[in-house]
Each structure stands twice: as structure tokens, then as C-alpha cells.
């Protein structure tokens, strides 16, 4: 991946999106081949890799016994580049009560809290695993808005997986489609659209996805 881009990772359920993200974070050990992030192996050198990554988990497993301000204080200790002012701006923008317990937050508020701690240290790589699944449009707008602001402001790299292809289309400038653990298509979004032009009409990412992945998914289901 090149620095400064927004990479959308799309694929059907079980295609391997989360597995790929886990490899990037060093949560899985490669059985063959190798994984390099910033030129380093995330399994053998987790501190150097993870301190430069902001990660929002699909599971949103923030410690539910913490208060929001405790979560911010705890998380800030791990990142030398943590920006208190930015964290406070994000907390206010996301309307998070610092005295609220994570356990008592709604799903959307938890996602915002997770995004806050992923963004506040201005990571070189932001990894979002299904950041908007099950969330309402307002939270999705907040998440996408924050992603776009981050990109616009500082030109850092974002990798996000999503089922919502419309969302990917709005934000990503490079799309990778995976199916059964294999990349079936990976190219800049504009190039993908151009290459799938039919009779002068540019198809949507939904249509391209169905055309490229739908067939192989159906074949796999038959097998």
C-alpha cells in the first residue's frame, strides 16, 4: 500500500477481510509467506508496528468497566504522538460524556469512543474493520467524516473493510476485492470503474462487485 491513500477492502462474509486485517496487526502468524508493515514483522516487533497504527475493531471490545475519560487516559499512555487537544476535540465532536461508563454507552457511542482512541495519536496507518456495520447513518457520517478529515488534514493511510459498497465508493481511492482469501481485483477506484464501463455507462461498485465476486461466490455455494 502506498502512503497517503484510502484503501477499501471489500468481500462477502467469510472472504478473509478480517483475517487480512489480523495479519496486519500481528494477531495471526502467517503459515506461509510473510507480512510486513512499515517494513517490520508485526508478530516479532509488535511495539514498533502497533504504536503507529490506529485500529477500530469490528467487535468493539473496549473494556466496559472503564469510564470514557479513563479510556482516553489509559490509551494515551501507549502512544508518544498522542494529541490531548485533538482527543478533546474529537470527544466533544462525538458528544461523549467523559464520566460515562463504556458499559452504559450505546453501540454508536462505543464506536465513536473506539474511533477517538484510534485517531487521537494521529496514526500513520488507520485500520477500520467494518467500522459502520450495524450503526445508524449519523454515526456512519461521523466515522466517515472523521476518516475524510484525517485524510484531508494529514494525508495518512487508511485501510477499511466494509460491506457497504456505497460507503467505500464515497471514500476510497483504491479498492481491493477479496474472495475466499484471494484478491480478485485490486486497483484505483477510477481505474476499476473505467475498466468496467459498459456501453459508455460507468457501473456502480455494487454492480462490479456482483460481477466479479458474485459468480465465484455462487460457484462456491454450489460446491
Amino acid at each position: 500500500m502506498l502512503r497517503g491513500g484510502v484503501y477499501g477492502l471489500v468481500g462477502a462474509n467469510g472472504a478473509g477481510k478480517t483475517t487480512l486485517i489480523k495479519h496486519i496487526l500481528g494477531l495471526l502468524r502467517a503459515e506461509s509467506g510473510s507480512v510486513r508493515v512499515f517494513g517490520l514483522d508485526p508478530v516479532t516487533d509488535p511495539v514498533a508496528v502497533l504504536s503507529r497504527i490506529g485500529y477500530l475493531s469490528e467487535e468493539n471490545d473496549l473494556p466496559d468497566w472503564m469510564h470514557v475519560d479513563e479510556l482516553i487516559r489509559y490509551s494515551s499512555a501507549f502512544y508518544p504522538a498522542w494529541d490531548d487537544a485533538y482527543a478533546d476535540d474529537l470527544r466533544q465532536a462525538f458528544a461523549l460524556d467523559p464520566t460515562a461508563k463504556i458499559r452504559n454507552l450505546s453501540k454508536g457511542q462505543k464506536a465513536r469512543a473506539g474511533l477517538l482512541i484510534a485517531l487521537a495519536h494521529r496514526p500513520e496507518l488507520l485500520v477500520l474493520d467494518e467500522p459502520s456495520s450495524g450503526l445508524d447513518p449519523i454515526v456512519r457520517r461521523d466515522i466517515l467524516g472523521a476518516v475524510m478529515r484525517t485524510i484531508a488534514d494529514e494525508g495518512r493511510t487508511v485501510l477499511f473493510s466494509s460491506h457497504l459498497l456505497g460507503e467505500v465508493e464515497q471514500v476510497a481511492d483504491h479498492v481491493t476485492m477479496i474472495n475466499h482469501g484471494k484478491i480478485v481485483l485490486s486497483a484505483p477506484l477510477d481505474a476499476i470503474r473505467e475498466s468496467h464501463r459498459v456501453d459508455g455507462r460507468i457501473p456502480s461498485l455494487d454492480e462490479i462487485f456482483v460481477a466479479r465476486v458474485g459468480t465465484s461466490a455462487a460457484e462456491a455455494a454450489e460446491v
Partner: protein
Amino acid sequence: MRSHAAAVAWEFRQRHRLGLIAVALYLLVLATIKLLVVTGWAPVHLDSPESFAFVVMVPLTTTFTYFLAVFSFGLDGDLAARQSMYPARRFTQPVTTAGLAWWPMLYGTVVMIFLWLATRLFALWPSAIEVPIIWPALLAASLLAWTQALTWMPYPLPGLRIIVTVLWLGTIDSIAILALQFKAHEPLMVGILAPQIPLAYVFARFAVGRARRGDVADWRRVFASLTQIKRVLSRRSDHFPSPASAQAWFEWRLHGRSLPVWVAIILPFELILLWAAGDSTSLVFTILIGVLLTPPFMASFAASTVSKSTANPGDAYGVTPFIATRPLTNAELIAAKLKMAIRSTLFAWLLLLLAIPIALELSGTWAVVLDRWRRLSEVVGTPRAVVLLLLILSGCIASTWKQLVQSLYIGLTGRASLIQGSVFLVLGFFFLFGPFAEWIIDGRRLGEVWSALPLIFGILVSLKMIAAVWIIWRLYHGGLLSDRTLVIGAACWSAAVFALYGVLVWLLDTPHIPHYLLMLLAILAIPLARLSAAPLALAWNRHR
């Protein structure tokens, strides 16, 4: 499966089949042993208090506690939370509230009664004990029924459930103990205990009804200002000085307080017995030994959660992505757990060391303890008596810490089969320990064992050192620990071994015990292999 009752029974059976199979196997073994003894096939004697405790009382108490947790849904819920521990998913089932509450209670009651009757029938009871038929079953059933009722009740404050449950169950237990003290006959005991069960059933129906309606009063606002003061006071600075200190804080908040809390709950019940001990030296010292063994004993229970990275009791053993993606090395994550365990141990012992003198003073039993201390000083000399006391105390404290951390190397693997397998292995060891000790003592093999002690210790030390070398080799080649950490760790371990050896040589200055035996003992006593294996286990779990 056409009825709610059958569905509830199926869920219990399906979820806890391994535990139920283990209990059934235990009862089968008890029955087989009794059959062999009764028919004269095997000359087994299990009527000494120690072997009886290991073969019958320890498994019986463990099984009772296990059933208490199973039938009150205590394995899934948060005991300290305000919300009912009754599974909320069941509230939407088309079943009456009485049906929701009473079927799990009925199964629990039947199982508890069966557990007692089976143990009474199959165990080899000491001939001196007249084993009652009904009231222990009723005591177990009523304690379970009240546990269910009180844990299913929603409470207006977090933590209130623990206080109410401990006090109420303690009251029932105390009434039963008092009745036994006054030599109450079985009919009277039945008369006291039997009404508890229907009362608990009625209360449980009320509790589940309130939980189902979401009828939970909230008194937290009353204490909100106090909470704010506490939060302001507890926040000494805006930032943690280092990632390691942040992680140590995390571990303390997640696991550190459970041991001191459990010790604080149990301690008053133990120390209150000093008032009943009077001038009886043996009774006072029995109580004090029990009190000193409480932290290591409770630590063995608290240890089951220390390896987890979440407070949710229902979660699996794996490391959560939140913790796995902290920019910390595996060694730093382990170090935070070890620091938490030290702090937790010291807090628990601080409570103990403050409470014991106060209880001795107030109960008027100081004189008994001082008298025994004077006698010991006269026999071995004051310096040796002081060192002996300090050695016992530091041994108990170290043992508490060791209990908390020694199973990290299993728990941190995150593999359910390994963790559950190790639990069964420990239970099996306890089960065999009694008969084995009995075999040694009864067969007058103590002399042979004493002669073989150097060989036994030598084999154990060899195994320990081989395991340690293999683990350190893996740690070094896997890059999990730096060279500096490995060297410092080895130096600290050697220093601790030599220090303990020195103290033992000075203390046990007798020609009957060779010094090399004390060295082997010191090597075995200071933890090495299992503790060193913890980073390997975490790496296996964190990077699957």
C-alpha cells in the same frame, strides 16, 4: 423438546456436560471403592481426618460450589452489577414468571439433595461420625435456593448483591452451626431448614418478576457526589508515566481487587470464631492457621480469572483484540499481571495483619498467643523464633502470590481444552493425594520416603531445570525476552535460591538434614519454569 421444563433441563445438561460427567465419575469411583471395601476385596482405610477430607469433603465442597454457580447462572453474570443475574434472553420466552424462576430452582434442589444422598451412601465415612440423613441435603438445597433468589434479584446499587448474599447465606449457615453446637437432633434441624426452601422459591419468583419488568431502583445518584470526589481523589495525574504503568493500572482495576475483597468478606467470619475459642490454645491456633491459609486458598480461586483480558465472565479465554493490539511486548503484558498480583497479595495481607491483632485483642486471646510465643522463644531462642515467624509469614505471602500467577502459563494459552484439562488434572491430584498419603502413613513407609527424599528431590529438580532451559531457549530464540531481561531474571532467581538456602541452613542446623537437600528444596521452592513459560503462552495466544 415440547416443554419449557425439558428445554431448561437440556440447556443445563448440554452446557455443563463435562462437569456433570466429572461428578458422575467421582461418585462412581466412590461407590466402587466402597464396594471393594465392603466385600473385603481391598484393604482401604479412609477414616483418618486428612484422607477423609481429601477424598470426600474437598470434592463434595467443590461440587457443591460448582452446582451453586451452575444453577444460579453465576458463571455468566456479573455478581457486582445491579442487574439481575438471571439470563435476560429468557425473559422474552412465552413462559410465566413462576415457570422461569422455579424450573431452574427445582432442578437445583433435586441435584443438591441427590448429591448429598449419593455421597452419604457411597463414601466411606469415619466410624466415629454419625452421619445425618436429611438435614445436610436440606442445608445444601436451601443455600442454593437462596443463592438463586438473591442473585436473580436486581439491586439499586452495584456490589449490594454480594453483601446481601454473603450476609444472608452466612446467617443460614450460622443458624445451622449453632443448632449443631447445641446438639440439635435431626427433626429440629429439618424443622429449621425445610421452610427455607419454599420461602426462597417465593422470593425468587418476586425477584425474577422485578427483573423481567425492568423494575430496578437506581440509588447511584444518591452516591454520585461521593463517586465524583473519589474520582477526583484517585486521579493523581493526567497521564501515566509509561505504557507499563498504564497496563499495570489496567490489570489492577480488572483483577487486582478481587483477592483483597474476598479475603475481607471471609475474614470476619473466621476471626469471630476466636470469641468462641476461649483459652483453648489448640483452638486459637487452629483458627489462626485457618486465617493465615485464607489468602493463598482464595488466591487459587482468584487465579482462574487473572489470565483473562476482560471482566466479562462469559467471554472465552483468548486475548481480546483491544489488549492484543496494545503496543506492548508480551513480556510487558505479563509484567503488568505480575505487578498486579504483588499489589493484590500485599493488600490482602495488609488486611489480615491489621485484623488479626485487633481480633486477638478484642477476643481476649492475646494471652494465649503470647504464652505460646514465650515457650517457643525459650526452646529455640528468640532470634530463631523471630526468623521462623518471619519465614512462615513471608512463605504464606509468597505462596499467595505464587497461587495467583503460577497458572498463568496455562490460562494465557487461551486454549479451552488445555485450561479445562489442567483443572481436571488438579482435581485428580487432590483425589489421589489422600489415599496416597494414607498408604504412606498406614504402611509405615515414612522412613522409606525420607530415605528416598534426595532421589525424589533430585528428579524433580532435574525436571524443573530441563523445562526451564527449554523455555529459556524458546524465549531467547523467539525474541520474546531480551538478553538483559534473561540475565537479570536468572540472577534474581539464583539470588533468591541462595538466600532461602542460607536461611534454611541457619534455621535447620541439624546433622539429620544434609545441606544439599536444603539446596534442592530451595531450588524447588522458588518459581522458575512455569513463570518463565507465561510469555511463551501469551505469544501463542496473541499471535495465533
